[in-house]
């Protein structure tokens, strides 16, 4: 492959990238590589053979096995695969090995380029306790909190737990020191539940991250989750690409994200952006990263954590800034300076992302499984779909229940909301239960429309989950449709069953022709 133009002056050129991930984010990164004129190489486990990300890639390496430990978490096999197929660099995506400093280190010691921040930066931000100290040193405000020191016997631990809880105050939050994504996270409102929830949090942390250390902090209620996107190069430039608001969450899993925040004034935006830049500079950050803040109801904000990787919700920032974050990550890793500075950046319009999960909102949002017999995404101006699945795939439980991300961009927040509502309404997914109906309901919710998006939005407005509320006549129409389709079975063959077969000779199809 001829060297693409952008790489000519790069100190460490990258002509192929192995993507150490799967699903929608692997597709997203492979697409960026192809746009930049470089090769995108996928890895796949046995259960992902034929999946969208491996089909899209220029090449694919099979990692034998189905368990995570054998495949997407198998750092030795991934590095070996990259060396065997001559990849120059490894992009970790999000999740999996993306925030593992030891993996980043092994990648560079194998002579490959790591598309991400230095192992030191990952380490200091990955451990919440170290991160807090570094932020305090850099004068970035932090939430009152303490680490639970596990003593040499149970009584010591309980003493230390009770002591920390008392000093932090109720309601409080227990979180895995090593973690993220809501795993190992528990809310405690009253002292009598402290010990039970601590045990559960510790166990979840141990299972999910192999580290049972639990951190305790004050739960700020009615606060907003606002995060700032950072980009830094290795030439001393650290910029912020404004904020995203990710307040609509369920069990600390984000559901709706938007940029810019509906309530931030320009003064707070500037202060938060500056704090995020200081946070990144404090750990000599390089590449794309996200500094998360809680904005309390009195307008003060606190450093929550820094995610030293690409974020799931990065597309909303790409929409409003016009910057392709994955492209910039690759350019920075190739040693190039950022091609713009802070004053070149501005906010254009408003973007919203929703996460399409295979889950049942009427059953406490339990993960759902099933074939994607019909999967027909919306299209149109300002509509973007980042998906890891297509029609004919299956919603499975072995990975994250997220199927796809739907992103809209409009000139105003109102337009973006209307656009998202329309897009969701025309998103047809049959065969596995999803949260699409619930997301439509959020788009129509007067509090969401008014921008009253606090982190307890779902708990307040949907305490019992969410149920399809169809009028009796709509339900009747749908039931009649099912029966009608049953009479015309040939017409209802899902694309999985009749791929390649033509139905043009179906007499019912000819009969149903309508002439104006």
């Amino acid at each position, binding site marked *: 492959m001829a060297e693409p133009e952008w790489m000519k002056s790069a100190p460490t050129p990258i002509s192929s990238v192995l993507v150490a991930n799967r699903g929608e984010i692997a597709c997203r990164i492979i697409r960026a590589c192809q746009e930049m004129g470089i090769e995108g190489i996928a890895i796949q486990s046995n259960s992902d053979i034929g999946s969208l990300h491996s089909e899209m890639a220029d090449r694919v390496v099979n990692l034998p096995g189905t368990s995570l430990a054998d495949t997407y978490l198998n750092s030795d096999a991934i590095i070996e695969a990259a060396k065997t197929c001559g990849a120059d660099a490894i992009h970790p995506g999000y999740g999996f090995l993306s925030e593992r400093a030891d993996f980043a280190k092994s990648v560079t010691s194998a002579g490959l380029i790591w598309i991400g921040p230095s192992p030191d930066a990952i380490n200091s931000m990955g451990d919440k306790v170290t991160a807090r100290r570094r932020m305090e040193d850099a004068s970035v405000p932090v939430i009152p909190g303490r680490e639970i020191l596990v003593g040499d016997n149970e009584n010591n631990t309980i003493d230390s737990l009770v002591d920390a809880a008392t000093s932090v105050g109720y309601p409080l939050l227990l979180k895995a020191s090593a973690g993220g994504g809501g795993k190992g996270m528990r809310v405690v409102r009253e002292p009598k539940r402290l010990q039970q929830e601590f045990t559960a949090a510790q166990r979840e942390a141990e299972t999910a991250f192999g580290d049972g250390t639990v951190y305790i902090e004050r739960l700020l209620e009615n606060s907003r989750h606002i995060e700032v996107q950072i980009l830094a190069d290795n030439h001393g430039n650290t910029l912020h690409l404004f904020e995203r608001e990710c307040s609509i969450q369920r*069990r600390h899993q984000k559901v709706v994200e938007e940029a810019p925040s509906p309530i931030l004034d320009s003064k707070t935006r500037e202060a938060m952006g500056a704090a995020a830049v200081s946070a990144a500079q404090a750990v000599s950050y390089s590449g794309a990263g996200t500094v998360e803040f809680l904005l309390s109801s009195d307008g003060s904000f606190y450093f929550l954590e820094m995610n030293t990787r690409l974020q799931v919700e990065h597309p909303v920032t790409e929409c409003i800034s016009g910057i392709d974050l994955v492209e910039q990550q690759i350019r920075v890793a190739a040693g190039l300076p950022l091609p713009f500075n802070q004053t070149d950046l501005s906010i254009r319009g408003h973007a919203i992302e929703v996460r399409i999960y295979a889950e049942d909102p009427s059953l406490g949002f339990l993960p759902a499984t099933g074939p994607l017999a019909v999967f027909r995404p919306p299209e149109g101006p300002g509509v973007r779909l980042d998906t890891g699945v297509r029609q004919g795939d299956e919603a499975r439980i072995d990975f994250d229940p997220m199927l796809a991300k739907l992103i809209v961009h409009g000139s105003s927040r109102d337009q973006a909301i209307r656009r998202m509502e329309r897009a969701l309404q025309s998103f047809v997914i049959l065969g596995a239960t999803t949260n699409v109906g619930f997301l439509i309901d959020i788009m129509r919710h007067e509090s969401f429309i008014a921008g009253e998006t606090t982190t307890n939005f779902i708990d307040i407005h949907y305490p019992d989950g969410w149920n399809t509320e*169809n009028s009796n*006549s709509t*339900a*009747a129409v749908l039931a*009649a449709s*099912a029966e*009608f389709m049953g*009479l015309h079975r040939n017409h209802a063959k899902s694309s999985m069953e009749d791929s390649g077969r033509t139905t043009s000779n179906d007499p019912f199809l000819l009969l149903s022709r309508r002439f104006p």
Partner: protein
Amino acid sequence: MVDLQDSDGKIWKIQVSGSPVVPISIESDGAAIDSSEISISLDPRPNRLVIHRNGVEQVAFCTKVGDKWWVHLDGSVLVFEVIEPGASASGNSEGELTAPMPGKVLEVLVPEGASVSEGQPLMVLEAMKMEHRILADLPGIVTAIHYAPGDQVDAGAVLLDLDTENE
């Protein structure tokens, strides 16, 4: 005439006659629904049909997965199971606690024979690395425990039997 059951357990009696554009008659849980303004016709594209309702036409998507019909109209999805004549109504029989999703049993919190109160946690399941507690829906006595920690369970598997009568 066919009986369909939606996911809430509601029974729909549907009669569709004629083609291509068909009038329908609908009963929901025994009560007739006015369907004089509703008719349906096929759309030439697969999995699609056209609903004519009060002079408005809308495209619905419909497909069968296993023995269930999935129907999408304007952002709403409903799932209907065809009730075969003679089959008994499905659903959980009382006193059984079933797994709401596939996963792994992490912990059994009560012994067999335990007397439990409503809302008491009985078992902890793990799926997607998150813990979910199985709670007693009524007070009663645990008469059988079918799984041990470490066991994998499918959605709908009966986890424990609860005698709620002779508590």
